[in-house]
């Protein structure tokens, strides 16, 4: 009672925020995290499947780099995921929780499909493709703009609103398919497979090259926009503190709406690339969960578009590797999902050690 410090339990360690870390140290920690995650995965692989973990990792690499075709397919998946990640980035940087990328992509894709299916080869292909592009972007904007306007004007919760918009997009797509495919199978199949009307053409004989180039350019533009433009600056100020933004004379509502228009437009573009440049069909699964995965990709890269190339590569690499492992070793893809989860857990977890340091508490003598 007379000496309170004696009765207070002193933890063995305590945590302190780091000021900053030299870049190479940070990368060393990340590298170590990946190594440890691979070791943990190896233990799981051996104990559950009795396979050689090195062979399993080898198969994983083959999933993306095993052949020319696999490499291009990987680049294609990468470009779509990256595109959607770029789309959600400005909104998230502004701390606008846009959980509606999935719906924005889907609705954008639906707008493309309406033209592709209903106008078909009645107009020149280039005109069709351009109008599909415009329609998708406008569709994406509409789906992103609605929650933004409601947030800016009436302070509605954007997470719930954007999630709700996802369901609306899914139902609209289901409805459209029901109308277009009266047999009830809900399968559109390849649209215009004979005429290829509305299909993005191959470039230099490469199927997805246009997709990839568009997203590559977009990545650089987004990097410059966020880092060097006035808009980009405004986004980060609003993200850090809306009050500060207001104080220095930024029109917060305008920034929110403008940024969500941009976000929605890029999602719409992704929808266009999926419909016109990739699948040539539409289904409820068009976005395939990428609208949510993109959030992780964007956060992992700390909203840096160039870093997002790496983080989306990581995700796509793990996904494709998962499929390869399942085939090669006759395993369920769930095992690969477990491995993916572990690896991502370690990569995210190691950021803790980059941002904080754990220090041994000096045996409580100094008191407080």
């Amino acid at each position, binding site marked *: 009672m007379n000496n309170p410090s004696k009765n207070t339990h002193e933890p063995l360690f305590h945590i302190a925020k780091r000021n900053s870390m030299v870049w190479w140290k940070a990368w060393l920690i990340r590298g170590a995290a990946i190594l440890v995650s691979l070791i943990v995965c190896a233990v799981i692989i051996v104990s559950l499947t009795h396979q050689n973990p090195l062979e399993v990792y080898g198969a994983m690499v083959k999933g993306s780099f095993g052949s020319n075709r696999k490499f291009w397919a990987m680049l294609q998946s990468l470009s779509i995921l990256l595109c959607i990640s770029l789309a959600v980035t400005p909104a998230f940087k502004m701390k606008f929780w846009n959980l509606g990328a999935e719906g924005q992509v889907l609705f954008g894709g639906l707008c493309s499909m309406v033209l592709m299916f209903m106008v078909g080869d009645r107009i020149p292909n280039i005109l069709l493709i351009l109008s599909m592009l415009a329609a998708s972007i406008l569709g994406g904007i509409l789906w992103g703009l609605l929650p933004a306007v409601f947030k800016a004007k009436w302070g509605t919760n954007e997470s719930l609103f954007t999630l709700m918009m996802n369901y609306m997009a899914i139902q609209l797509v289901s409805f459209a398919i029901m109308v277009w495919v009266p047999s009830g199978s809900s399968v559109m199949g390849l649209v215009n497979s004979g005429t290829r009307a509305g299909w993005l053409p191959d470039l230099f004989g490469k199927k997805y090259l246009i997709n990839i180039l568009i997203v590559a350019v977009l990545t650089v533009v987004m990097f410059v926009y966020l880092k060097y433009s006035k808009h980009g600056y405004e986004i980060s100020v609003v993200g850090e503190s809306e009050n500060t933004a207001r104080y220095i004379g930024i029109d917060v509502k305008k920034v929110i709406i403008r940024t969500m228009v941009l976000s929605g437009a890029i999602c719409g573009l992704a929808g266009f690339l999926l419909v016109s440049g990739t699948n040539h069909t539409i289904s409820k699964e068009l976005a395939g969960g990428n609208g949510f995965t993109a959030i992780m990709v964007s956060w992992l890269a700390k909203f840096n578009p160039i870093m997002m190339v790496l983080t989306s590569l990581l995700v796509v690499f793990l996904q494709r590797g998962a499929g390869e492992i399942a085939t090669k070793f*006759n395993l369920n893809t769930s095992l690969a999902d477990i491995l993916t989860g572990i690896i991502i857990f370690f990569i995210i977890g190691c950021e803790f050690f980059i941002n904080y340091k754990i220090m041994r508490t000096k045996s409580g003598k100094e008191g407080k």
Partner: protein
Amino acid sequence: MKKILAILMALALVLGLAACGGKTPATPDDNGGETAAAGNYSDIKIGLICLHDENSTYDNNFILALKEVRTELGLTDDQVLIKTNIGEDDSCLTTAEELVDEGCNIIFADSFGHETYMMQAAQENPDVQFCHATGTHAHNANIPNFHNAFASIYEGRFLAGVVAGMKVKEMIDNGDITADKAKIGYVGAFPYAEVKSGYTSFFLGVRYIVPEATMEVTFTNSWFDIALEREAALKLINNGCVLISQHADSEGAPKACEEKGIPNVAYNINTASIGPNTALVSSRINWAPYYKLAINAVAKGENFDADWTGTIATGSVELLEINESVAAEGTAAKVEEVKKAIEAGELQVYDITTFTVDGKTLDSYQADVIDDGTFQGDTEAVSDGYFHESEYRSAPYFDVQIDGITIL
């Protein structure tokens, strides 16, 4: 507390490292001796593209049959590549092409929506045979290396319906329900011919035993959704259905039935293990005969059917083991009797005297056999007093809404 945690973590790390270190030298024996493939199958390499994985009863049915054939033909593991969770989109085409790259000379795909992608892959790879189950195009697509296959599963479902009918009759005979309460429920995936043909034949099987029976059908609009299928089954049970069957691929409905003590008829797998007190029987398409037919043709370098329908006679349509502890007495004998009648052609599943459409006999029906995107009937399917299902094309085209069935 935290000290203990720290010690535990350190221990875990050490153990983890030790476990890994210990395993590495043990790898060489993992390679296994590669046994030479038997006879003329040495050049065969088979790919299978599945929409879902083993957790889906439908996909598992394809996977198990292919593994069975692999063993039977003495193929090595490397000769069979199975790709699961492949969507009905460009990934199907890419996967098919990757399988071609890996040297597959025959590739199967199991989902309706894979078809147009398989057709494209077939056109781009004329030396590889592409076989698509449940598809509608091959019979008139004129792509020599593109094939469709299905089975006259409506006959199997009719037999399963007979098993269900015997159970319902037992309930009536025992006084559990009155004949006017003989309502059964059906959980369907999508409202198109494959599913409609399925529930109609099942219903006609039930009515073969209990003429007063009625049926309610509800759709989940998904091929695999455990929660939705469970909900759908519970909804039907709440509506007073005394027996449930389903044509959707998860275990949602049979599990719900086991919980509620409602007899269930399944499709593609034996569900006795998840429903020991309620699972009655399952009808199943056995894909092994088709796999063997196609693989043998490729091995010999011969052509094979563009569109193939398996039957009870080819071993493609099966009724799996009847769960005697649930089924009514005398079921097996009755099933055997009906099966013989079907095989002999004495009994037609879609006999137009056994059902009506809007109160009238269906004496003529233009079925949409040619899938040209118009969704218009083009082939007269009713003749000789019955609807000729899976005759003009392997994939079902019976999509008539008959009396006694209510769509929810």
